[in-house]
């Protein structure tokens, strides 16, 4: 009788433990209690407004990862609760969302925002509360204008610009024309391109700009054509890039005698660019993260496994491939959960910030993250690759 009771209680205990811990892992050896308070994380995303395309992908990635982390036992057995706020691509709303997350939800850290302006706008509240922020926006200013509380996951312009300029130089071009937007991304890249080009001995013979929303870039391209540039670098994250290529095609800059090679950055790593520009984008070369084509890493590498595993799960859940924005959100969440495991779920904001800064060798979507007290982006040009658009799809350039 005593024996039977012991067997039954053991079986019950095992069943409970298994159902909570799921497939096991680190948490399996810990004492687990379902009644423990969840660890609250905030996210500020642009689910509506201009950057809705970015925010939607980021939300999908975060939902997927939170569920996976919780199924695997959460942080030391405590579930993760993600509170998502929409900033409507509006800086004032991003500030309101951040203060709501801090004051009302008492989150331990905030992921976001989707845009550079929104990420910068939240700084006041972030600094006041001492809560760490991991941004998924690409603006260099986010980590260049240094704030100890702020981290960033996308490949920043500080590494992408020299990488692309090196490729232009390696292709034998010396006189380049720059066409950048006056919005956040282009304005961020332009001074970097100017200094970096000078360092590499490249001459900028024409520097033209356009405003976000412009529907015709013929005037700028006409001037670029008569400047005698032997390569054109476009620096924008907007949909105007496709218009530029179509205008260039009409001006005879894409084939025949007047052909000029066009280069770009992460802003063109979008299916919509190749689709929208159609034949005009053939041969377009851009630099961005290696993970755009996971095979870049080599199928035996850890990076390949991480990216491929994430892509597979994302495809199963949503029926589509993750774009780079989903990848940046995946990285932000991975960095935060790893730091939470290191510092412990009860760690205060300062300890959590230190744990994030201590991140070393974390293989994610963007590459291998290694933060330091000076570098809160943590990626290098080793994490980047060149791509050329061929037959409407990007192929890695050897």
């Amino acid at each position, binding site marked *: 009788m005593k024996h039977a009771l012991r067997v039954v209680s053991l079986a019950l205990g095992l069943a409970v433990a298994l159902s909570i811990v799921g497939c096991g892992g680190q948490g399996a050896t810990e004492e687990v209690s379902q009644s423990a308070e969840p660890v609250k994380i905030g996210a500020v995303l642009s689910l*509506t*407004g*201009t950057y*809705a*395309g970015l*925010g*939607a992908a980021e939300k999908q990635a975060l939902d997927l990862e939170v569920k996976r982390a919780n199924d695997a036992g959460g942080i030391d057995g405590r579930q993760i609760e993600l509170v998502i706020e929409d900033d409507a691509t509006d800086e004032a709303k991003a500030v309101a969302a951040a203060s709501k997350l801090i004051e009302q939800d008492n989150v331990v850290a905030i992921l976001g925002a989707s845009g550079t302006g929104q990420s910068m706008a939240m700084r006041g509240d972030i600094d006041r509360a001492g809560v760490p922020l991991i941004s998924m926006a690409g603006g260099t200013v986010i980590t260049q204008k240094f704030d100890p509380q702020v981290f960033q996951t996308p490949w920043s312009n500080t590494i992408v610009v020299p990488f692309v300029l090196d490729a232009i130089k390696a292709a034998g071009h010396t006189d380049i024309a720059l066409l950048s937007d*006056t919005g956040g991304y282009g304005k961020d890249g332009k001074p970097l391109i100017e200094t970096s080009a000078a360092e590499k001995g490249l001459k900028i013979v024409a520097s*033209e*700009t*356009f*405003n976000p*929303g*412009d*529907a*015709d870039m*013929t*005037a*700028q391209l*006409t*001037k670029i*054509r*008569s400047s005698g540039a032997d390569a054109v670098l476009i620096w924008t994250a907007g*949909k*105007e890039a*496709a*218009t530029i290529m*179509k*205008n260039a*095609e*009409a*001006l*005879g800059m894409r084939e025949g005698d007047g052909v000029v090679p066009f280069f770009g950055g992460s802003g063109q790593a979008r299916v*919509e660019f190749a*689709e*929208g520009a*159609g034949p005009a984008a053939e041969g377009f070369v851009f630099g961005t993260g290696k993970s755009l084509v996971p095979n870049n890493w080599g199928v035996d590498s850890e990076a390949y496994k991480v990216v491929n595993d994430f892509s597979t799960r994302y495809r199963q859940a949503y029926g589509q491939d993750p774009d780079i924005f989903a990848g940046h959100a995946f990285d932000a969440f991975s960095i935060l959960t790893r730091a939470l495991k290191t510092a412990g779920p009860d760690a205060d904001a300062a300890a959590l910030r230190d744990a994030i800064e201590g991140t070393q060798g974390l293989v994610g979507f963007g590459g291998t993250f290694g933060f330091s007290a000076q570098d809160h982006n943590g990626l290098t040009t080793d994490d980047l690759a060149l791509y050329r658009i061929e037959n409407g799809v990007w192929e890695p350039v050897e």
Partner: protein
Amino acid sequence: MPDVAELLQFVIAGLKSGSIYALVALGFTLVYAATGAINFAQGEFYMLGGMLGVWFVSLGLPLPLAVLSAVTATAAVGALFELLAVRPISDGNPLRIIIVTIGGSVVLRQIALHLFGPDELALPAFTTGSSLKIAGAAIERQTVWIWALTALAVVGLVVLYRKTTFGKAMRATSLNRDAARLVGIDARAMVTAAFALAAALGALAGLAVAPLTQTAFDVGAGIGVKGFSAAILGGLGNPIAAVGGGLLLGLLESLAAGYLDPVYKDAVSVVVLLAVLFLRPQGLLGGSGKEKV
């Protein structure tokens, strides 16, 4: 490259954007004539035209049919918008109509975001092939389409207004609503018709330009401002003046982008607009107001 060819290229680019502005401006003048109010949802009709066109193509419709369906569907949305949002304003106060259209534009944009998603969409070119060359300047085939469609719309509108009973009824309503009602014209129906026509013109502009620029749920606000500026520049309430204003605005922008810094492009058009408002508030080509429809 000789400078004449460069100038010609700027002029072509200017007339291309200008034609689009003209079509949108026409929509503003139609609604203004009928209600005395500015329809700030006009840009959203431009957006809806392009988005619906892409959607009809994705359903397998041939392009001409998709374009026609998109124009018709947007006109229906315009009429519905008037019936649901504008008509309930019983006193017809223009200020209240303006505020309702601002709210309506936000609603239309958010509906488009949820129906068609946040990413930009591409519409195929009306005719494929390389661009045409004239005296060293290039003209995209789509640009020729834009010009042709704008001309067609303007001629069609003039014929409608001058030759048909329906058009005459619309003009009568805009001149004197009460008198028009006394002679048996359904003035309310004319307002609905004005919204439907304005929506159709906006949709046509959005469709004509979509193969060049792609379209997205958020393109309406920007073009709305341009079209409004064009209408003011030419003179509100006069369709021909609105077309002139559109072409002029496009030319100014293109020449500013070509010969000055492109950053000043939008500034130049705003400065000209302000100058017109100060010196000649009825518009460059406008008469004394809405009587000239």
